[in-house]
């Protein structure tokens, strides 16, 4: 038998709405724990370091260094360290043909959530 299912989700972003609003502008909004100052990006509602539940929003520059990358037929992905964040984040590379080891958070294509990084040279930084 054949059966076709088309789904069109609307997903409320809850606590993370400010992060997603910023992301759609290409801005990196992190969560900083008021207890231990650990900074998570993407943000965590509960501190990953101490379990604290009070978080403040904190703007990051959006710049990140590439720690590891892997290239596939459908693009390239990387583990990167965003300036000011503890820990790493997985991103899709917006310009996978480039090989620079750093980049800047990019506006997600088609307003999708998720993190895209535009690779660029240090001297391309106009922030």
């Amino acid at each position, binding site marked *: 038998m054949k059966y076709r299912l088309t789904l069109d989700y609307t997903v409320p972003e809850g606590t993370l709405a400010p992060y997603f609003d910023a992301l759609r502008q290409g801005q990196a909004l992190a969560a900083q724990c008021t207890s231990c100052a650990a900074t998570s990006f993407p943000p965590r509602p509960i501190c990953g370091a101490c379990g604290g539940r009070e978080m403040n929003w904190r703007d990051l520059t959006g710049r990140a260094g590439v720690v590891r990358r*892997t*290239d*596939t037929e459908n693009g390239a992905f990387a583990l990167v360290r965003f300036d000011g964040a503890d*820990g790493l984040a*997985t991103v*899709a590379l917006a310009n996978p043909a480039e090989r620079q080891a750093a980049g800047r958070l990019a506006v997600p294509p088609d307003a*999708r959530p*998720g993190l895209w990084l535009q690779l660029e040279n240090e001297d391309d930084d106009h922030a």
Partner: protein
Amino acid sequence: MSGVVVAGGAMTPFNRRKDGSGMRDWARAAFFDAVADARLEAGDIDALVVASESDFFTLQLNPAALIADELGLFGIAAQRVEGGGASGHLAVHAGAAMVMAGRARRVAVVGLEPSASHLPGAAVGALYGLSFDAWTDGMTGIDSTSLYALSVQAFMEETGAGQDDFAAIAVRNRQNARANPNAHLPLDIAAADVAASPVIAQPYRRLDCSPLSDGAACVILAGAAGLPDGGAGRARIAGMGVANDRVRLGERARPGRFEAKGVAMRRALAEAGATAAEIGLAEIYDSYSGAQLQALDGLGLAGDVVGAEREGVFAADGALPVNLSGGLLGQGAPVGATGVAQVLACALQLEGRYFGRRVATPPRYALADTHGGVATLNAVSILEAAR
């Protein structure tokens, strides 16, 4: 020790179905063969636990009720258990818990998944992307292989493991699978074939990846008192452990290490009253060739896992044979069925009646290891031979 007996079990072949059969057929085949193997009747079963990873794959919500009906079981306790790639194994744990708690006498655990036949591979891949953090990973289009690749790169850097080691595993598991009539990829390949297969996500090539498979597996769990001859000769689940890790790889202190497996393992060993050194056989969740080494490392089954791999410790004739079934790489991976089949393989090996490549001398303990995500949700069982 849990004292839950694996009274019997059965599985269908794992492969890409081309015979027109569907998941309801596979579930029935696995269930009735398992009941017969346990020397029971279907009417002896008073609880059913169904494992399937995703309604997107099965196109069936409330699958436990549907499968119970398909099996002709009514008025029984039925539930579905899900935990990504670990779904089948978690279902075994749920069934065992029912027996231990006295909530059921004889539980059928049925794992199934139409991972290959229902949807195009690309659609399955896109859905798998949602099994990490859908909001940060899945919607970028990152796939399972890429996340595992990023993880194993860190493992390689820290341990010196190389692509040659991964190729050796990719070859060995396929060679083991050649003795398994239920295997999806019983391939007679060599390391050069792995190296010549296309790159999927560096460092992984096509032959480093496990396939999408169709199939079902079933085990019957019971207390000894509920079985003919008190379950004589049948293996027991001596210890179980489950532990989760951070979903987002980048938040782990060591993204290359499957550390939560160690937590699950210590829990299972404590319950079994066993030590890691006493494990004489293992079915390991080798969703990727390198993941097999990462798993063995995380479980604490070797101090220097790369050295042990190169010395042949994990070969069929080694001190700790791993994935004699072929593992996911060779036997295949219909997600909900995978963990059930791993537990079944361990039990049958301990009983000396495994249908594939057998361990030379059945050990006292065997280990089944399964996970969802990139070792995010980890389930471990230690099975013990009857004495």
